Structures are given as C-alpha cells and as structure tokens.
C-alpha cells in the first residue's frame, strides 16, 4: 500500500528584543553563566513579571507578515511542569487566546505555489540551559536564557513531504529575518522546531496517528528526522503494526529517534490564566501602526527583481532568500552598478567564497561600493574578467580597495595599441605555419594565435583589442 505523509511543524523563534520578556535583563546570546539574571528571570519567590511591550509588537508583526488575524483580547497562561532549566516550575505561555491566529504562508516547491496554514502564533518565555556533568552525575544550570522572549509558530498539518517542510522552514526564516523580529541564528539556537508526522493510506481522509519529534537543532536535522520517521512508520504499517502516539527524541549523531514518552505518560500541564499578568487589548490603531512598519517581504522583492531588473526567477529567488544578501544587492545597484553584473557576481564567485568560508549568507567582508568599483574596472576595460576573479579573492582575504589590488598585483590590461601591436607582430613572426593555416580557413589557428599573444602579455592584453588587431594583421599578411 502507498502512504501519504502528513507533517505539521511547531517553530520556536527567539525575538530580537533588547531585554527579556518579563524583566530588564539583557537579551543576549552567550555570556558567562548566570550573569544575565535577576530575581525575576531566575524565579525567586515574591517577584512579579512585567511584560515587555516590544515582545507584543514583534509577535503581531510576525503574525501580520504571515497573514494572521490578531486576537484583540489576548492573555497569558501558566504551563506547569518540573524541569531544572525552568526555575519557576512553570512557563508563562499562551493557551486559548494566542496573539495571532488563522494565517498562512505561501511556499514554492518545484515551481508550484502551495499555501500552508498557520494555526497560531503565541508568545512565551524560553528556559535556561543545562550542562550535564557525567562525572559528578549532576547538571549545572545556567539561567541566562531564562525569560528570553519566544514566539511559537504552529502550522496546520498541510505539509506532505520532508521537502515541503524544509521549504516551509526556509520561508518562515526569511520572513522572520525580513521583519527583523528574530535574527534566526541557527547555531545559537534562536530558531528551533518540533515535528509532527503521520502517515495515512493514499486517498484516506482521516489523519493517521502522529508522532512528535523533539530535540531538532537544524533544518538539516529536521529533514533527516522526518525522512527517518517516514520510513519507520511505513515499515510498522506495512507489517500490519499500529503507530502509537508518542514523543520521540531525535539523535542527530546516530541518525535515529527513540521514544521519549508515550501517550500514557504524556505531560499534564494544567494550564491556567496567569494571575501575575493582565490581559492585553490590542486596538485597531496599534495593529495598523505595526502593519506600517512591515517592509517589502521576500515574495514582493523577488517580483520586483524580475520586473524591474529583468533577472531570471531563480536568480531573483536566491538573491532574496536572505535579507542581508538582498540588501547588499539593492545597495550596490543603487550606487549605479548594472543589476545583471551585480547579480552574476553575487550568485557566482561571491556565493562560492561564502560557501567555502562557511559564512552566513550575505556576510560579505567588503562594502557594496567596493563591489561596484570592481565591476567598474571590468566595464572600463582596466582588468579582464579573469583578473577580476583574482581581485575578488584578495578582497575576501583582506580589506583593500580593488584599484589598489589591481596595482599591487599588476593586473591592468594592456590596451595601448603600440605595445599590443608589437606583441601581435612578435607572435606572427614566430608562427608562420599558423598564418598559412588561417588563410586555409582553419579557425583553430586564430584561437591558437590569440592564446600565444595572451601568454606573451602574461594575460594582461585586452582580448577585444588584440582580437581585432590580430584579424587585421592576418588579412594583411
């Protein structure tokens, strides 16, 4: 039997606020353990939380960018559980009145647009970090991350393959970056996700029993865990077995997931309205004020690149898939560089350097003005395309103006006609047979002679100029 895969995701994004959600401690990754804490975020008895307004602003902004309706009467709730990374023994979250509901995000998979429903987006606080000490059989708790603001984005079970889920995650990440509510640094854990996956026989309407996967630390791990779970459930069902609803822990090193808890011992969170915090009333004016701060989103920007600059769809997609990259592109173009040339450099050699050096997309070590200067040098004929590649490599190595690099490495093209003519004559004198071949209609001879002249000039001859000169000289010979 063939099975259809059904996936829903829960994505947690840390918000880029200055301070934590309920106290004025700095919201900053890292820091010595327990140096970003106070009695509120470390859960001392008798303290009271006060909600950071920007957290509400950011959640609404993300919600609007994902086409949600904003809950105008919203509240926070207590989710109770014991775990040493949560000093209060409860997490303040939202239960039945999340700030944003019923939205959607359009994703493009294999050239086709698909709409994925967003069930809800709510605000909550992050927990601390535990460092396990195997030797002493204890853990050391660091509460710096306690109270860092999060939004949890819950998708509808609209995704039908790990690939679709991957594109959805990338699309969410781009929207969060563009709206500047999260910096989405995967390696710092500021974007994390839980996966719900089930299978159902093809054509069946009802969903099958789902399993939830936790401890997924990268998009790659998310995709691997989904592929693993797809395979596991297919095997169980094909052998006549049944899927038990359970929570599984993904082990990325072993590439497998193991049962963490079954339905029988599912957590009983006993949510109740948070008595220490007041409800929120979100006015129409407030919503409109936030709506006006939403920048051009990736989809719109992509369309603009296609219509305004005539870029191919694929190029426009790649350039806009990271805000930093798109901003860099726009800035270089606004300085007067040709959009096509900028796009070619950014998607070609620059992208390659970024990959090789494992930098984040758009982390280009030189300014847009310097990229423009490099493109100008090619267009003016000062350097050849291949010399420009060498200059670019230098620009990645250390900050230096492209003109200075050209000078330092002696990469200027020779366009001086007298000097070039001497080289042409020299090469022709050394290769009489090639002249005969050329006259006999062998085009290869022209390429050979061009190559010889480039060699004599140490690659610095302007190819357009010598091509012309060589043809003229051959006609006369």
């Amino acid at each position, binding site marked *: 039997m063939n099975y259809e895969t059904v996936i829903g995701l829960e994505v947690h994004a840390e918000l880029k606020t200055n301070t934590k959600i309920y106290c004025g401690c700095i919201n900053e990754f890292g820091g010595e353990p327990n140096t970003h804490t106070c009695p509120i975020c470390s859960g001392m008895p008798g303290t009271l939380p006060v909600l950071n307004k920007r957290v509400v602003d950011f959640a609404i902004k993300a919600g609007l960018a994902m086409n949600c309706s904003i809950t105008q009467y919203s509240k926070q709730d207590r989710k109770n559980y014991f775990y040493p990374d949560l000093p209060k023994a409860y997490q303040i979250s939202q239960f039945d009145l999340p700030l944003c509901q019923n939205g959607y995000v359009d994703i493009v998979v294999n050239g086709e647009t698909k709409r994925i429903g967003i069930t809800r987006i709510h605000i909550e606080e992050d927990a601390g970090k535990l460092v396990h000490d195997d030797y002493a059989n204890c853990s050391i708790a660091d509460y710096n991350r306690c109270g860092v603001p999060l939004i949890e984005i819950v998708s509808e079970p609209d995704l039908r393959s790990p690939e679709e889920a991957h594109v959805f995650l990338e699309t969410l990440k781009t929207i969060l970056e563009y709206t500047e509510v999260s910096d989405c640094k995967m390696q710092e854990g500021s974007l994390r996700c839980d996966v719900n996956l089930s299978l159902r026989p093809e054509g069946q309407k009802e969903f099958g029993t789902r399993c939830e996967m936790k401890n997924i630390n990268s998009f790659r791990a998310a995709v691997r865990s989904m592929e693993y779970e797809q395979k596991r459930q297919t095997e169980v069902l094909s052998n006549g077995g049944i899927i038990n609803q359970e929570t599984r822990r993904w082990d990325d090193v072993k590439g497998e997931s193991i049962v963490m808890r079954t339905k029988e011992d599912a957590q*009983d969170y*006993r949510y109740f309205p948070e008595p220490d915090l007041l409800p929120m009333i979100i006015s129409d004016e407030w919503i409109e004020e936030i709506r006006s701060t939403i920048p051009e989103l990736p989809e719109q920007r992509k369309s603009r690149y296609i219509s305004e600059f005539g870029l191919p769809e694929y190029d426009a997609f790649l350039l806009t898939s990271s805000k930093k990259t798109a901003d860099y592109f726009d800035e270089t173009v606004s300085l007067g560089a040709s959009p096509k040339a900028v796009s070619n450099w950014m998607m070609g050699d620059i992208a390659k350097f970024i990959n090789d050096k494992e930098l984040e997309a758009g982390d280009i070590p030189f300014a847009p003005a310097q990229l423009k200067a490099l493109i100008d040098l090619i267009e003016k004929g000062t350097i050849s395309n291949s010399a420009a590649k060498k200059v670019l490599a230098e620009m990645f190595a250390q900050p230096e103006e492209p003109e200075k690099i050209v000078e330092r490495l002696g990469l200027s093209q020779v366009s001086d006609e007298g000097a070039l003519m001497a080289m042409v004559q020299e090469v022709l004198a050394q290769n009489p047979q090639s002249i005969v071949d050329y006259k006999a209609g062998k085009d290869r001879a022209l390429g050979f002679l061009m190559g010889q002249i480039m060699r004599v000039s140490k690659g610095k001859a302007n190819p357009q100029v010598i091509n012309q000169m060589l043809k003229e000289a051959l006609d006369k010979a």
Partner: protein
Amino acid sequence: MNISKEEVLHVAKLARLKFTDAEAEALAKDMESIIGFANKLNELDTEGVVPTAHAIPMHNAFREDVVTPSYDREAMLQNAPSKEDGGYTVPKVVE
C-alpha cells in the same frame, strides 16, 4: 463530586508530593468538599458571559524594552544549596 484515591495520587505526583494511603484517603474527602464548593459556581447561568481572564479589571500593563543591570552572580547564587562553575548544581535529569 467523587474524588478517588487514584486522582489524589495523580495530583500528588504532579506536585511531587508523596502520601501514605491513609493520607490520600483523607485528602480525597477534603478535595471532594473543596471541589464541591467550587462547583457551586456551575449552578449559575453564565450564558453570554465572557470568561474572566483576570480578577482585576485592568489591561495592558507593559514595560519599555530598556536594559537594566542584571544582578551580581555571587549575589544570585548565594542561596543556592549547591553551586559549581558559576551555575546552580541540580540533579541530573535527562529527558
């Protein structure tokens, strides 16, 4: 309202409390009367009444997103029963 001993033990487990059978049975009786008392509210007609999110009729108490200094780590840790490397040592729980 009937509360079984098992329900008492479930709630006790969630609260990390331990009771003997005799204690649990006595608590079942107490909880019956407490919940029975709260259940009296169900006798009211609440048709058309919005659920109460908070007992105080106020809303939108916010703080501006301005950093205030965190506490000194030594001060934070001074009541910790056990500490190590600038952190609170806790029993190892791996879920």
